[in-house]
């Protein structure tokens, strides 16, 4: 180690400093600059990408410095998802590449499942092992008994592989554990879902209503940006949340609602807006079905009725209803994103959809726009074989309106049941940490123990990889090509992800893995291109573009064919529902045997000494996948337990005191979580950010930091409409001393 004095003497040689480029801009610097050796980055080269740290998929540029290292990632100005500004996670995406804890080589389990003993093997050996197992399962049980759980770009290729193999059982936890109820409710009401990025026209709204949605802590980038624009333009925000969220602090009205009573508030709002005649009469008349039934249904649901349930003053309910009505049709009652809370979520989201409909915000400026998208043609692969069974066969007569496969459903159907013809025998898990993602960990682990094959594909040694038979190290998004991004927005856009770096260690892109596996399974016909980029080039050439062009620009924007972002005045519209109208009274729900108009039902309340466990997001992290990222851990390295001062006094808790939590079923957190005493939370609930309390020792930065909310979610309220897993009906109490090891169930 050179001493400080040595350093001064030799620093002129550039030791420890950044070597400067000699570009013209630098030459123009003043003398001050030339004396300072750490101000400029030199010349940078950039390659296009779109972000994989979360599902928003912002397009950006990866900048590399003269040493060929990634210097920074910044947003692409032309991108509608991010407008040139990434969120902290996207900016910190560089940490994904540099994290030395990454999975480095294919691993094969030796010894018992869950003991985490692996040996490093070659790619060929790992893939041959998987192919042999898959073929054995197909022979004995049928190819449908292989399921794919995915959350990320690589899912597309493994989906292709599975369909070619003969299994339709492809699922993402983003449906049944997250936004499923919202899609079902909006489909039933408007005939179209909300999709991602949401079609909310927050930019031009005059009133934004957030119900348990904490935009600003959940960094859904485009929405955060537009909310900020709306604040600038003087829009009012109404936030309904038992916690004083960041969004609540920016709001004109904050309604500190008693948890689990939102549906009563929504029905009271609908009541006020109808009774006072504040609804959009022309719109309701022209476009909706079932208004009279709705009026009758909410007749008794007065603000006074709701006050007794929600603790929100009747005057406040009326005032906020007026605020929405005054802003209409430029009003958004936001559908939220993670909405699997109490098991009646589809009905709650139906109430949200109805409220939007009677205020005329669907299809109107400042409400919900009509998205446009540009789709690339797919290569003409051979047709897939027809599967004979789907996951839904395991649930005869249940969840009739589930539009996508349920991750929780496939997990449950893996545990053998009497009279079921097939239980799942193999899981391929890509980029989703099912141990933390699915509620009721004991159940997930029981399912895993019934598998003949568990393949985990990830960039990091997440908990799920510890349970796997085969672990395949995927390279990060900064080291690979992926499908062209085609998500809908105000205009259609295509965005390219290309590698900025060569894959580190022995990691590989998912496309390569899926193709190699396909070759071993004699399914090569579905992967005709050896290189992903050749397939992309073929697709792009069909619409008159090319890969070379996309590599330069990163993104292509397509103007709308028609000026139809919003409904034209008096436009005749046939909505894709049974009646061709916006269904305030849902015939689809009725036909499936559910309430056509939402009813309020009370939910269980915490017993004495227990508090409702609420969880949410912190802006620096995505799910549980970023907790080990060096750049993001630097911002937030553990979660804390928000406790109201009144509760803290009762328990004698002090700030930063470590506590353990135990829920109503005796599930106990393994690691302590520090108490954060704050006025920002109600006295009947506690709150933590999801995604901490990692139990895999290979995650050196985040192992044992904070608590896992998933571990404490053992009671699941399943939504009968579509199978969503309501996770906010769990109650916890504090343990001020460390529980015994046997009390911490695995």
């Amino acid at each position, binding site marked *: 180690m050179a001493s400080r004095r040595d350093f001064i003497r030799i620093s002129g040689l550039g030791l420890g400093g950044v070597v400067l480029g000699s570009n013209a801009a630098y030459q123009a610097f003043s003398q001050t600059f030339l004396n300072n050796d750490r101000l400029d980055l030199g010349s940078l080269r950039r390659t296009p990408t779109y972000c994989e740290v979360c599902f928003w998929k912002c397009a950006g540029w990866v900048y590399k410095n003269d040493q060929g290292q990634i210097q920074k990632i910044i947003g692409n100005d032309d991108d509608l998802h991010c407008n040139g500004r990434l969120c902290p996670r996207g900016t910190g995406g560089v940490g994904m590449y540099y994290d030395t804890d990454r999975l480095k080589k294919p691993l094969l389990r030796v010894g018992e499942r869950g003991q985490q003993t692996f040996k490093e093997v070659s790619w060929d050996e790992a893939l041959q092992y998987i192919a042999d197992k898959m073929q054995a399962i197909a022979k004995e049980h049928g190819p449908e008994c292989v399921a794919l759980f995915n959350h990320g770009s690589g899912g597309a290729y493994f989906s292709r592989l599975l369909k070619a193999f003969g299994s339709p059982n492809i699922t993402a936890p983003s449906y049944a554990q997250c936004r499923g109820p919202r899609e079902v409710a909006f489909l039933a009401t408007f005939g179209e879902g909300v999709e991602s990025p949401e079609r909310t026209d927050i930019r031009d709204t005059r009133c934004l209503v957030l119900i348990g949605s904490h935009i600003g802590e959940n960094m859904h980038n485009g929405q955060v940006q537009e909310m900020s624009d709306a604040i600038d333009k003087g829009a009012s925000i109404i936030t309904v949340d038992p916690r004083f969220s960041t969004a609540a602090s920016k709001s004109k009205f904050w309604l500190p609602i008693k948890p689990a009573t939102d549906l009563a508030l929504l029905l009271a709002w609908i009541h006020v807006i109808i009774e006072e005649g504040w609804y959009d009469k022309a719109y309701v008349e022209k476009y909706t079905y079932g208004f009279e039934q709705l009026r009758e249904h909410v007749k008794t649901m007065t603000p006074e009725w709701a006050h007794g349930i929600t603790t929100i003053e009747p005057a406040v309910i009326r005032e906020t209803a007026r605020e929405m009505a005054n802003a209409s049709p430029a009003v958004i009652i936001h559908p939220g994103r993670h909405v699997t809370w109490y098991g009646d979520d589809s009905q709650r989201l139906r109430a949200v959809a109805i409220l939007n409909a009677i205020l005329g915000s669907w299809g109107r400026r400042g409400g919900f726009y009509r998205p446009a998208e540009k789709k690339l043609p797919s290569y003409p692969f051979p047709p897939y074989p027809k599967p004979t069974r789907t996951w839904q066969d395991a649930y005869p007569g249940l969840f009739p309106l589930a539009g996508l496969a349920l991750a929780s459903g496939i997990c449950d159907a893996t545990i053998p049941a009497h009279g079921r013809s097939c239980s799942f025998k193999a899981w391929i898990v890509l980029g989703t940490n099912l141990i933390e993602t699915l509620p009721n960990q004991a159940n997930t682990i029981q399912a895993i123990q019934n598998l003949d094959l568990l393949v985990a594909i990830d960039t990091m040694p997440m908990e799920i990889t510890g349970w796997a038979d085969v672990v395949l190290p995927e390279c990060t998004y900064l080291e690979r090509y992926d499908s062209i991004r085609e998500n809908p927005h105000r205009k259609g856009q295509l965005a390219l992800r290309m590698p900025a770096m060569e894959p580190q260690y022995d990691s590989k892109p998912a496309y390569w893995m899926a193709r190699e596996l396909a070759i071993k399974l004699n399914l090569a016909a579905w992967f005709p291109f050896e290189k992903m980029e050749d397939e992309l080039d073929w697709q792009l050439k069909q619409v008159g573009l090319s890969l070379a062009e996309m590599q330069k620009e990163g993104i292509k924007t397509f103007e709308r064919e028609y000026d139809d972002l919003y409904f034209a005045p008096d436009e005749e519209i046939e909505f894709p529902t049974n009646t061709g109208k916006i269904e305030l009274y849902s015939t689809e729900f009725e036909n499936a045997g559910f309430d056509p108009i939402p009813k309020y039902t009370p939910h269980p309340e915490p017993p004495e000494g227990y508090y409702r466990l609420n969880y949410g997001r912190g802006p620096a992290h995505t799910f549980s996948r970023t907790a080990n990222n*060096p750049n993001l851990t630097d911002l937030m390295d553990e979660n804390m337990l928000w406790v109201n001062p009144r509760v803290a006094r009762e328990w004698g808790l002090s700030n930063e005191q470590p506590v353990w939590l135990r829920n109503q079923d005796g599930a106990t957190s393994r690691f302590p979580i520090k108490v954060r005493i704050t006025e920002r939370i109600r006295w009947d609930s506690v709150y933590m950010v999801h995604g901490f309390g990692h139990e895999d020792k290979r995650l050196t930065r985040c192992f044992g930091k904070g608590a896992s909310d998933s571990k404490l979610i053992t009671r699941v309220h399943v939504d009968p409409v579509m199978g969503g897993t309501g996770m906010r009906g769990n109650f916890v109490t504090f343990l001020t001393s460390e529980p015994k090891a046997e009390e911490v169930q695995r």
Partner: protein
Amino acid sequence: MRYAMAVDTKKCVGCSDCVVACQTENNVPIGFCRDWVVEVTDGTYPQLEIEIRSERCNHCNNSPCVRCCPTGASHYSDGGIVLVNSEKCIGCGACIASCPYDARYSHPDGYVDKCTFCIHRVKKGQDPACVAVCPTKCMYFGDLDDPKSPVSVVLKKRKYKTLIPEAGTQPELYFLI
């Protein structure tokens, strides 16, 4: 020229994107930062207020750090931006002790480091990295001597404050309230 920055506390959500952007732009080692986020909560449930501020060096016109630096490493540069010349700096820490805003840290390489208003970017006509990245666009940067610069315009329109005005440092970091 008088460079200044204004941060809108009404829009900032405290996401700390400014912190990561600064770290990657300026090679700030992990574990250190040139800018940071402060959240202040006032009141009792349910009558509450939060002020969120993205803070950094205030680039004061009357800087105690420049006055107390024994080697002249801390100095005023173009447009009043306060810089540290890492070659002249001996890491004595006098400036760290004198800064009322706690805006400086000891770099592991043995010199004192802090925000430069990204002068290398500003010279090229770009905004500082934190301003350019902010998803809420809550930061405004520019020359106070130019009435058309974003920071001049916003300071004319809005109520604002500076931090610890009683320290008499004449800071150039403004918070819109």
